[in-house]
């Protein structure tokens, strides 16, 4: 139990720090809303393999609430929530069906994150014109998903079992 608390605490802290690093990068200058690396998703991705579905869900939720309060503002929390939850759900399914490697799981998570956010945007704006950004966001989700999957795979391999044992 104590080990579990320490492990979850460490992962939440890590995700929080990565959200902060991400908040420092001015992606807005790209001129396309919604493009990010999604560094914090690296932790959620690793948590799927380290803590199982419920652990990953918990860490993702705490991370979204914390970074929403600290960096992005309450307004964007619903976007993070929609993207984060859809992405986590899709990643869990993709992992379960055993048809994909870690990279495939992460890419599926990356694009579903963007699809979730664009759907919430269309709903709150009451306008489907945001789907104009859909193709670009698909590509961005694929790239960031692949990066997270590669890095996450390496991290999971290198982690000593004793420190953060499954």
């Amino acid at each position, binding site marked *: 139990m104590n080990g579990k608390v320490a492990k979850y605490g460490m992962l939440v802290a890590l995700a929080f720090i990565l959200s902060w690093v991400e908040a420092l990068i001015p992606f*807005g200058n790209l001129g396309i809303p919604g493009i990010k690396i999604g560094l914090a998703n690296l932790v959620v991705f690793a948590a799927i393999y380290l803590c199982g579905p419920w652990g990953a869900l918990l860490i993702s939720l705490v991370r979204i609430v914390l970074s929403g309060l600290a960096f992005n503002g309450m307004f964007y929390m619903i976007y993070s929530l929609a993207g984060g939850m859809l992405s986590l759900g899709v990643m869990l399914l993709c992992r379960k069906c055993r048809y994909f490697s870690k990279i*495939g799981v992460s*890419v599926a998570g990356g694009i579903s994150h963007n699809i979730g956010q664009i759907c919430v945007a269309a709903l709150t704006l009451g*306008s489907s*014109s945001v789907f*104009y950004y859909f193709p670009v966001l698909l590509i961005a989700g694929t790239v960031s998903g*692949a990066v997270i999957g590669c890095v996450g795979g390496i991290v999971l391999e290198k982690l000593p079992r004793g420190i953060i044992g499954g």
Partner: protein
Amino acid sequence: MKKGDFILIGSILAVAAVSLLVYRYMGSVAAQWAVVTVDGQEYGRYPLDEDQEILIQGAAGGTNLLVIKDGYADVTDASCPDKLCVHQHKIRDNGETIVCLPNKVVVTAVNSGRPALDGVVR
């Protein structure tokens, strides 16, 4: 990497490429109007061949400054904290869009001057 990964990534990129091509084809025509919607309701429709500045009253008291100049529509100032709408590129071609999420403002370049129709059944 497994075979499933390649199929997944390949099909996503194919979908993205096809929709980009469709957009390019649709958007190759310069639009005549900048249509502004706030919270899903049409707010105004401004001709792109007339240089003007419009202060849009967005949702929750926010404002966006829409500038139409040389056939382009651009949001140059906004009350929101992140200014994502200001960073988005100026638009001219049919279907191009500038979005401000906090103020629920959408500016779309549109080709037709008629009121927007959901669909026409013949």
